[in-house]
C-alpha cells in the first residue's frame, strides 16, 4: 500500500456529477410523468386537426348519448362531445403555461433581488409579498374576474401575480443560501457589478429550485385555469374549453357522464403527469441519500 497521493499529481479527471435532468430521468416516476403529460399534450395539440366536427356544430339533441355519428354523444347544446374535448385542451395548456412562465420569471427576479440586496429593498418587497399572500389564490382571481370581467389576458395576469409572491419566497431563500457562499463575496471583493453578480454568480446556482418551482406552478396553473372555467369565470361560451365543458355539462352527469368525464380525466392525468415530473426534478435537486455515508 502506498501513502496518499499528493494532490499535485495529475490524476484522471473525476467524472462530473450528472445534470439535473439526467438524474431526474433515472427515477421511474419521471418517465411515467413524461408519458402521462405527453399523452394529454398530444391530444390537446393534435386534437383540433383530427376532430370529426367543428366545435360549434349541432349534431345531436342536448345530452343525447349514443347519437348517430358521435362516439360520446352530445353536450348540453347538442354539440359533439368528442370534438369539443379535442378542441378544448390547447387553451388550457396555453393559459396555464403562460401564467406559470410569467409568474415564475417575475418571482425569480424579485426573489433574487430581495435575497441579495437585503435591507429596505428586501423589507419592502417581502412585506408586499405578505399582503399578496394574504389572498387565497382562487379568491383573488375571482375578485378581479368578477369586477373587470373574464378576459384572457386577465386570467393569465391574475394567476401569474398570484404565483409571484410564492415563487419569490422560495427563490429568496435559495438566494440567501447562495450568497452565504464565499464565491459571491469573492466577486464583491473584486468589485463585480451587482447586476452581474446576480446574473452570473447567483442565478445559475438557483436553477434547481427554479425548475422545481416551474413544475409546481405549472401544475397549480392548470388547476386554477380549470377551476375558473368550471366556476364560469374563465373562458366564456361558446369556446370549447375543458373547464367550461365541466361547468356546462355537470347538471347532467348522471345521464351523459362523458361530457364531464373526458375533460376531468384529461385534467387529472395532466396534473398528475406534471407533478410526477416535478417530483423527479426535486428529488434530483435535493439529492436523496444514495446509501453510503463516510
Amino acid at each position, binding site marked *: 500500500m502506498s501513502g496518499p497521493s499528493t494532490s499535485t499529481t495529475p490524476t484522471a479527471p473525476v467524472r462530473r456529477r450528472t445534470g439535473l435532468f439526467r438524474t431526474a430521468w433515472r427515477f421511474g*416516476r419521471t418517465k411515467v410523468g413524461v408519458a402521462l403529460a405527453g399523452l394529454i399534450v398530444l391530444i390537446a395539440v393534435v386534437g383540433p386537426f383530427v376532430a370529426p366536427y367543428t366545435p360549434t356544430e349541432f349534431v345531436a339533441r342536448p345530452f343525447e348519448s349514443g347519437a348517430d355519428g358521435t362516439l360520446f354523444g352530445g353536450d348540453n347544446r347538442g354539440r359533439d362531445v368528442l370534438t369539443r374535448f379535442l378542441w378544448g385542451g390547447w387553451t388550457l395548456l396555453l393559459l396555464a403555461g403562460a401564467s406559470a412562465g410569467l409568474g415564475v420569471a417575475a418571482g425569480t427576479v424579485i426573489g433574487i433581488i430581495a435575497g441579495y440586496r437585503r435591507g429596505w429593498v428586501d423589507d419592502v418587497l417581502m412585506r408586499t409579498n*405578505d*399582503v399578496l399572500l*394574504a*389572498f*387565497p*389564490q*382562487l*379568491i383573488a382571481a*375571482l*375578485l*378581479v*374576474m*368578477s*369586477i*373587470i370581467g373574464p378576459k384572457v389576458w386577465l386570467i393569465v395576469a391574475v394567476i401569474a401575480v398570484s404565483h409571484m409572491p410564492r415563487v419569490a419566497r422560495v427563490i429568496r431563500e435559495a438566494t440567501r443560501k447562495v450568497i452565504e457562499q464565499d464565491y459571491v463575496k469573492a466577486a464583491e471583493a473584486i468589485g463585480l457589478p451587482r447586476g452581474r453578480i446576480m446574473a452570473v454568480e447567483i442565478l445559475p446556482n438557483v436553477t434547481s429550485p427554479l425548475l422545481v418551482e416551474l413544475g409546481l406552478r405549472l*401544475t397549480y396553473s*392548470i*388547476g*386554477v385555469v*380549470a*377551476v375558473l372555467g*368550471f*366556476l364560469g*369565470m374563465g373562458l366564456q361560451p361558446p369556446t370549447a374549453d375543458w373547464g367550461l365543458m*365541466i361547468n356546462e355539462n*355537470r347538471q347532467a*352527469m*348522471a*345521464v351523459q*357522464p362523458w361530457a*364531464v*368525464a373526458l375533460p*376531468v380525466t384529461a*385534467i*387529472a392525468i395532466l*396534473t*398528475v403527469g*406534471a*407533478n*410526477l415530473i416535478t*417530483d423527479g426534478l426535486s428529488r434530483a435537486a435535493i439529492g436523496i441519500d444514495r446509501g453510503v455515508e463516510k
Partner: protein
Amino acid sequence: MTRLIAVRLFFGALTLWAVSLVVFAATQALPGDAAQLILGRDATPERLEALRDQLNLHEPVAVQYMQWLQGVVQGDLGTSFSNRRPVAEFLASPVQSSLTLMGLSALVATPIALFVGAFSALRRDRGFDHSASMGTLVVASIPEFVVGILLILLLGPGGLDLFPSVYAREGGPEQWVLPVLTLALAVAPPIVRMMRATMIEVLESEFVQQARLKGLAERRVLWRHAAPNAIGPVAQVVALQLAWLAGGVVAIEFLFNFPGVGKVLMDAIENRDVPLVQAVVLLIAGIYILVNLVADVIGLAANPKVRVANR
C-alpha cells in the same frame, strides 16, 4: 416571546388592513356606480340621486373608504344589493355551514394524515412508504374540484349511487360525505408529507442518535426526544392547510351546491352584489390571515430557543 407574538399580531392586522384597501379599491373599479347597479337600468334619475345620497356616493373616495371601514370594524358590512338584507345577518347561516364543513374535513383529514406520515417515516423506503408517497403525490396534483367530480362519478348517482351529489335542504347527513371527503383529500397530502419529512429529519438527527447511544428505550426516544422536536413544523403545516380550506371551500361548495360562503360568493358575483362580495372576500382573507397567524405562533411556541430567552 410575547414581543415576537405582538409583532406577528401587528403585521397580521396590517395585512388585514391592506387587504381591506385592495378589496375596497377593486370594487371601486366597477363600471357604473352602485346606485345604478341596485336599481337597474330603468330607474328614474330622481331615485338614483336619492340612493346615491343615501349611499354617500357623492363623498370623496377616501371618505367613502373610511365610512366603509368604520362600518366593517363595527360589524356593519352594508346592505346586500340583491336581497336588501344586512350583509352580516344574511351571512350568519352560510358562515356557520362553511365552518362546519371545514371543521369536519379537518377533523377527518388531520389524524389520519399524521398517522400515515409518521408510519411512513418509521417504515422508510418500504412498501407502505412508497405507496403512501405515490398516493399523496397523485391526490395532491389533481385540482380539488376534479377530485370532487371523480368522486361523484364513482360514488354518486351515476356510479355506485352511495351518496347524493347535490346538497338539498331536506337531505340527511349522508349528503355531507362527498364534500367532506373531497376537502379532506385535498387537505391531507401536504400534512402527510410534512409529517414524514419532519419525523425522518428528527429521527436522523444527532440528538436522537445520542439518545439511542445513551441506551434509552425506543419508546422513550420516540416520545421524549423525537416528538417534541417534530411538533412545531407539523403544527404549522396543519394550520396552513386549515387556512387553505378558507379559500378551497368555494369551488367545492359550488360543485355540491352546498349553502356556504363559497356559494354565496359565486351568487353575489353573478348578481354583481358588491357589498356581499366585499364582505365574503374580507371574511375569507380574515380567516386565512388569522389561521396563518396561529400557525406562526405555534411555530414560535414549539421552539424552546424562542420560548426561553437567552440568559
